[in-house]
């Protein structure tokens, strides 16, 4: 078609026409999936990738390589930070967070900040070796998956529990309070404990109850005490009344 047009329009002294009709057949870029040419189809089938047969699925066994990798500067910094945290802060709680949005996290951080609890993020790759090499090795199995540390200088367990109850995605796993590893039930019972001063007061009063009772008795009038003793003797020996009374009179 183009050849015939061209032959018709080009005159002998050769000038190019104003309009040129370009051959238009099928397009390369289509909206539907264009069927492959049979040759291309054959080529793709022949050169298809066949993965080598795996004896066991990937992920069934842990890899043996990559055990000893040198710590880069960031990891060393983070380990130093962790060490400082374990030294400074009395309460370190481990929480698994499933919340994906930052809004919830910001709200929770704000709520905890009011009670002096700060939220710390560390990669598990750094915390696990640090914990295994320190005295807190029993805390290491807690750090799997997305975990967050809630640290505070004062063990404010009740407030922490109320804030965590408000956000359902955060799961409390355990805590290290005053160098003591506690599970969830332990944390709950810790929160129900009364304050230290109250406990000490109760203990002291319980121990000194007997002695204080004796002291108050001795401060009474001696006549009162002697009459009490006489009554006691009478109660002890109701049958032998005549024998006991002369001994009591001798005592007073």
């Amino acid at each position, binding site marked *: 078609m183009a050849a015939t047009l061209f032959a018709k329009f080009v005159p002998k002294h050769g000038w190019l026409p104003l309009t040129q009709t370009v051959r238009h057949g099928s397009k390369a870029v289509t909206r539907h999936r264009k069927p492959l040419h049979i040759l291309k189809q054959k080529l793709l089938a022949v050169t298809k990738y066949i993965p080598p047969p795996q004896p066991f699925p990937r992920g069934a066994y842990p890899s043996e390589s990559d055990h000893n990798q040198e710590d880069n500067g960031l990891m060393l910094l983070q380990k130093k930070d962790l060490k400082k945290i374990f030294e400074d802060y009395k309460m370190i709680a481990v929480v698994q967070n499933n919340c994906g949005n930052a809004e919830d996290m910001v709200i929770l951080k704000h709520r905890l900040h009011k009670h002096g609890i700060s939220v710390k993020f560390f990669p598990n790759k750094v915390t696990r070796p640090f914990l295994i090499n320190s005295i807190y090795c029993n805390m290491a*199995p807690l750090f799997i998956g997305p975990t967050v540390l809630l640290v505070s200088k004062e063990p404010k367990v009740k407030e922490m529990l109320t804030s965590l109850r408000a956000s359902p995605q955060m799961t409390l*796993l*355990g805590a290290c309070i005053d160098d003591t590893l506690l599970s*969830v*039930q332990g944390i709950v019972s810790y929160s129900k404990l009364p304050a230290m001063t109250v406990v000490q007061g109760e203990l002291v009063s319980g121990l000194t109850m007997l002695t204080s009772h004796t002291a108050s008795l001795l401060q009474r009038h001696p006549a009162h005490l002697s009459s009490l003793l006489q009554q006691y003797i009478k109660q002890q020996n109701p049958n032998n009344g005549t024998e006991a009374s002369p001994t009591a009179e001798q005592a007073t």
Partner: protein
Amino acid sequence: MAAPCKATVVLKAVKKIAVQFCPFESNTRSTREFLALVGSEKARATNINCQVVSTVKHDKSEPVVDVTYVDGEQLVMKGANLTCSEMMSAFQSRCTNKDPQTKAAAKK
């Protein structure tokens, strides 16, 4: 490694997911990863009525995932010897079976 190919987890046919595990045990990795995937915002946004409850225990019990579907069926997965991807595939296959209409509509 253990994340499913389909990034979003659709919980349309699920009523409740109860996950219980003991974090001090060493066989809880897959259960915890499953919980992280299912409890994420994206997954929960697919069905707001679905409850995701996690219970933390300390009695050396096995990690268990208990899924209750809308039509009353229960799926109990004991995650002690399962990988996260196995649990996810089992869970998602049942979800797609339960909810074929929305899936077919989405694919078309």
